[in-house]
C-alpha cells in the first residue's frame, strides 16, 4: 500500500524535525528512535539549556535543596540528533516543508512535530513587569533568579494568583520562613482547577502555614522606587502592601505566535490536532505530516464529550509525545489515539495533591475516603450521573482505582462500601466551581484495555 510505503520510507530515510526541546520534544525524539526511525533528526529549542524538568523548579529548587542546573531530564536512550538550542523557530512554510529559525537558517522536514509548549503570562503592564523584584516562574533561568532573590531574605513576597504554581511558590516561601501575601481574584486558591469545596481546604492549608491569603481581590498596580526596584503593591480593596518581591502566577500563554500565517489552526488556545496528534489546518482539515504534542496541543478527548482539551500536565506531555512519535512512523490502523486520562500532582504546605480526570467538568463531589477537615481525603467528582474526576490530598495511592472508574463511566455517586468512608462521605455536595462548564448531551464513551496497543473505546450513541 502506498501509505504504508510512505511510512516505511520515512522511517528509514526521512527527515524528522522536532520544534521544542523540553519534556515533550525530548520524549518524542527518543520514541522516534525507539520505534526504529533511522532517518535524520533535528531538535530545535529556544532555550540554551539541554532539556530539563520543570516540576522541581517551584519546589526543590526554590527551597534551595537542588540547584536549578540540576534539573536535566534523564535520557532514556541515545537519540543521535542534531540539536539547535538557543534558537527560536520563527516561521513555518507548510508548502515547502521548512521551519525558519531566528538566526535565518531554514530546516527542511518530511515530518514535523511541534512541541513549543507555553510560557508564563507576564504582568500586564510592561513598565511594572520590568521592575527589579517582579518575577515569573516557568524556566530554569526564572527559577535561578527567583531562588537567588529569596535567599537574600526579602521582607515580604507577594504572590499574584493562587493557582498551582502560585500556591507552590507561597509554600516554598513559608518553608524558607519568609512573609508571604497571596492575592487571588477567585474565592479560594485552586478553585478554578478543583472547585470551591476543595479550594476552601487549600485556603485552610495556606492560612494554617502562615500565609496572608487574600481572596476576591486583584492587584491593581506595582510601584517601584527611583532606582526601579519594586517597593509596593496596590490592591483592588485599597490596601497597599510593602513588598520587595512579587511573583506573577497568572497562568501560561501558548507559544503559537511563530505559526501565524502558516495555515495551521494555531491560536492563543493552542494548536488544534486530532486524537492521533495530527495538526488541523485553518480549514479544519487534518494534516498528515505535522504533529503536535504537549502543552501547546489541543485535542478532542472521547471520555469528556470529545471536547478539545489543552492540558498543561507533565504526564500528558510524555504520553502525547509518545503517541505522536509512534504515529509519525506508522500508518493506517497502526496509528494510535492519545487517550491519556488527565492527571497531575502538586506538593504544597506538606501535602501531596493529586488529581485524575477533569474536575472542572464535575458538578458534584463526594468525599469517598478520609475527611476534608483532616486535609487527608479523596474527593470524587461526578457529572450527569458518571464519575468524571477524583482529587486526593495525601491519598494518592488510591487514584488508579478512580481512574478506572472514570474510564468506565462508572455511576456517580458511588454506592459501594470502601475503607475509610465517613458519614460526610455518604452524600454528594455541589463541587462549587466558579464558572461551571457542563459537558453537552453526548454519547457514552468508555475506555478499556491496558497496553497502548490494546486500548479501545466503546461508543454508545445517545438516544435522540
Amino acid at each position, binding site marked *: 500500500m502506498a501509505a504504508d510505503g510512505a511510512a516505511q520510507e520515512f522511517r528509514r530515510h526521512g527527515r524528522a524535525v522536532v520544534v521544542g526541546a523540553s519534556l515533550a520534544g525530548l520524549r518524542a525524539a527518543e520514541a522516534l528512535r525507539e520505534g526504529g526511525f533511522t532517518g535524520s533528526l533535528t531538535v530545535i529549542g529556544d532555550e540554551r539549556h539541554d532539556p530539563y524538568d520543570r516540576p522541581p523548579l517551584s519546589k526543590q529548587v526554590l527551597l534551595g535543596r537542588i540547584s536549578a542546573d540540576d534539573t536535566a531530564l534523564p535520557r532514556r536512550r541515545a537519540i543521535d540528533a542534531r540539536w539547535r538550542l538557543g534558537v527560536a523557530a520563527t516561521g513555518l512554510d507548510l508548502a515547502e516543508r521548512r521551519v525558519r529559525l531566528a538566526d535565518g537558517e531554514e530546516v527542511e522536514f518530511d515530518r514535523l512535530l511541534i512541541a513549543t509548549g507555553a510560557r508564563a503570562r507576564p504582568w500586564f503592564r510592561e513598565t511594572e513587569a520590568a521592575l527589579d523584584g517582579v518575577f515569573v516562574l516557568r524556566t530554569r533561568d526564572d527559577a535561578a533568579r527567583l531562588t537567588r532573590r529569596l535567599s537574600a531574605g526579602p521582607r515580604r513576597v507577594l504572590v499574584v494568583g493562587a493557582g498551582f504554581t502560585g500556591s507552590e511558590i507561597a509554600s516554598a516561601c513559608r518553608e524558607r520562613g519568609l512573609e508571604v501575601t497571596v492575592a487571588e481574584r477567585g474565592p479560594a486558591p485552586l478553585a478554578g482547577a478543583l472547585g470551591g469545596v476543595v479550594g476552601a481546604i487549600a485556603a485552610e492549608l495556606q492560612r494554617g502555614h502562615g500565609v496572608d491569603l487574600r481572596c476576591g481581590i486583584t492587584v491593581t498596580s506595582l510601584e517601584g522606587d527611583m532606582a526601579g526596584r519594586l517597593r509596593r503593591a496596590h490592591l483592588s480593596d485599597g490596601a497597599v502592601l510593602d513588598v520587595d518581591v512579587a511573583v506573577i502566577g497568572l497562568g501560561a500563554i501558548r507559544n503559537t505566535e511563530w505559526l501565524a500565517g502558516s495555515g495551521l489552526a494555531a491560536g492563543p488556545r493552542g494548536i488544534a490536532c486530532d486524537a492521533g496528534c495530527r495538526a488541523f489546518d485553518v480549514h479544519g482539515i487534518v494534516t498528515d505530516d505535522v504533529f503536535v504534542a504537549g502543552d501547546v496541543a489541543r485535542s478532542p478527548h472521547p471520555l469528556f464529550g470529545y471536547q478539545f482539551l489543552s492540558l498543561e500536565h507533565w504526564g500528558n506531555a510524555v504520553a502525547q509525545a509518545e503517541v505522536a512519535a509512534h504515529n509519525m512512523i506508522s500508518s493506517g490502523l497502526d496509528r494510535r489515539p492519545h487517550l491519556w486520562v488527565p492527571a497531575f500532582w502538586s506538593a504544597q504546605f506538606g501535602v501531596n495533591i493529586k488529581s485524575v480526570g477533569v474536575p472542572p467538568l464535575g458538578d458534584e463531589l463526594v468525599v*469517598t*475516603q*478520609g475527611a476534608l477537615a*483532616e486535609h*487527608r481525603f*479523596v474527593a470524587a467528582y461526578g457529572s450527569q450521573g458518571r464519575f468524571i474526576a477524583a482529587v486526593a490530598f495525601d*491519598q494518592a*495511592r*488510591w*487514584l*488508579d*482505582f478512580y481512574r*478506572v472508574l472514570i474510564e468506565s463511566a462508572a455511576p456517580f455517586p458511588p454506592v*459501594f*462500601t*470502601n*475503607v*475509610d468512608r465517613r458519614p460526610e462521605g455518604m452524600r454528594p455536595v455541589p463541587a462549587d466551581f466558579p464558572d461551571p462548564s457542563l459537558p453537552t448531551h453526548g454519547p457514552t464513551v468508555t475506555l478499556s484495555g*491496558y*497496553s497502548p496497543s490494546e486500548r479501545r473505546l466503546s461508543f454508545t450513541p445517545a438516544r435522540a
Partner: protein
Amino acid sequence: MTPATLLRQITDYASRANPYPLYAELRKTPVARQENGVYTVSTYWEIAGLLQDPRVSSDMRSRAPQAACGPLAEPEEDTILPPSFIGLDPPEHDRLRGLAMRSFGPPHTPRRIHDMRAELTRMVSGLIDDFQGRGQADIVDDLAYPFPVMVICKLLGVPHQDEARFHVWADAVVAGLETEPAEEAGARQRAAQQARLELGRYLAGLIEERRRAPGDDMLSAMAAGHGPAERLSPVELVTTAILLLIAGHETTVNLIANGMLTLLRHPDVLKRLREEPGLAVPLVEELLRYEPPVQLIPQRTALTDIDIGGTTIPKGAPIWLVVASGNRDPRRFPDPDRFDPERRDNQHLGFGSGVHYCFGAPLARLEAQIALAEIARRLGDPRLVDDPPPYRRNPVLRGPRHLQVAFDGLTV
C-alpha cells in the same frame, strides 16, 4: 484440572521448588473461586487493580464469619494482640505507618537507609570472610539469613545476641501462614498467636529500656514519639515493632537466597554481575518479578460485591492475590518466564502496590544488591550443589531452606 484442586497443588510442599507451571494454569481463570471459598486472583492487571481498590480490606476482621478459612483462621480474640498496620485499613493504617515511617524514611528521615550502605557492605564482607578455608557454604545459613537479621537488629535497636530467642518466635509466627497439614491449622494458629504474644513481651521490655536510655535506632525514636498527638500507644509500639522485626527477618532472606539460586542457574548473568556490579540494581528488580520472596497476599477481604475479571467476588469473601503469578503474566511482561536483568518497564508486584506497598522496600533492595554483588565478586567459580535445593515449607514466604554452593577460593 479444576481450579479448586489447583490451589491445593500450589500450596502442596511438593510444588515448592517450581510453582510457576501451576500459576500458568491458575491464570486461565484470572479470578477463581476455590473449594475453600477463597477467591484467587492470578493475572497482573486484576491483582494491581485490587491492590489499589478501596473496596478491599486488609483487616481480617472484615471477613464474613463463615469465610474464616485458609491459612489464617479466625483469631481467638482474648489471647492476641491487635493487628499491626499490615492488617489494618485507613485511617488507622495510615496513622501507624506514617508514625513508623518518621524514623525510617522520607520525608523526615530521608538518609537513614542511604547512610547504612557502608555498614551493610562491612557486614556482608565479614560473613563472606568466614567462608575462608572452606570449599562449600550454605548461602542461606551463612549469609542470606544472618545478614538481614544483623541489619534489622541494628536498625531497630534489638540486641543481636538475642537472635536465638526471637528467631524461634518469628518462625512460629510465619508458620501461621502455612497450609498443611490442614488438620493442624488450628494448632498452628494458636502457636503463632502465642509466639507473637511472647515476641511482643520481649519487645515491650526492650522498648522500655530504649525509652529510658535512647539510642540512634528506630525503637528509641518510636518510643520517644513526636509530641503527644503523634505518638504510638504502648500496644501500637509493640505490634509495629513485631511487624518490622519479622518482616525484616523472614523476607529478605528469600530475596537473597532466591537471587543466588537464580544467578547460579544463569551463569552468564552471574559473570556479568562480577564484571559490572552496577547490574545489581536492575537485576534485583527482575528478581523481585521472577522469584518474589512473598508469593501471594492471603489476607485481603471484599467489603462489597466486586466485579472483576468476569467474576463477582462477594462481600466478605477472602481474596488471595497471587503476586508471583501476576509477575509472570504474559499480557503484562513479554516472555515472562525468561530471567532478563535488563528488562524494561519492569513494574513488578514483588513489593505489592497501593497503600500497603512494602514498607521496607528501599532496605530490602539495598541488602539484596550488596549481598549478591559481593557474592558474585568474591566467590571463585561458584557451583550449585543441589538443584533444586531443599525449600522452606511456607508457600507464602517461599525460598530455599538451604543453598549449598561449592566454590574455589575467595577474592579479597
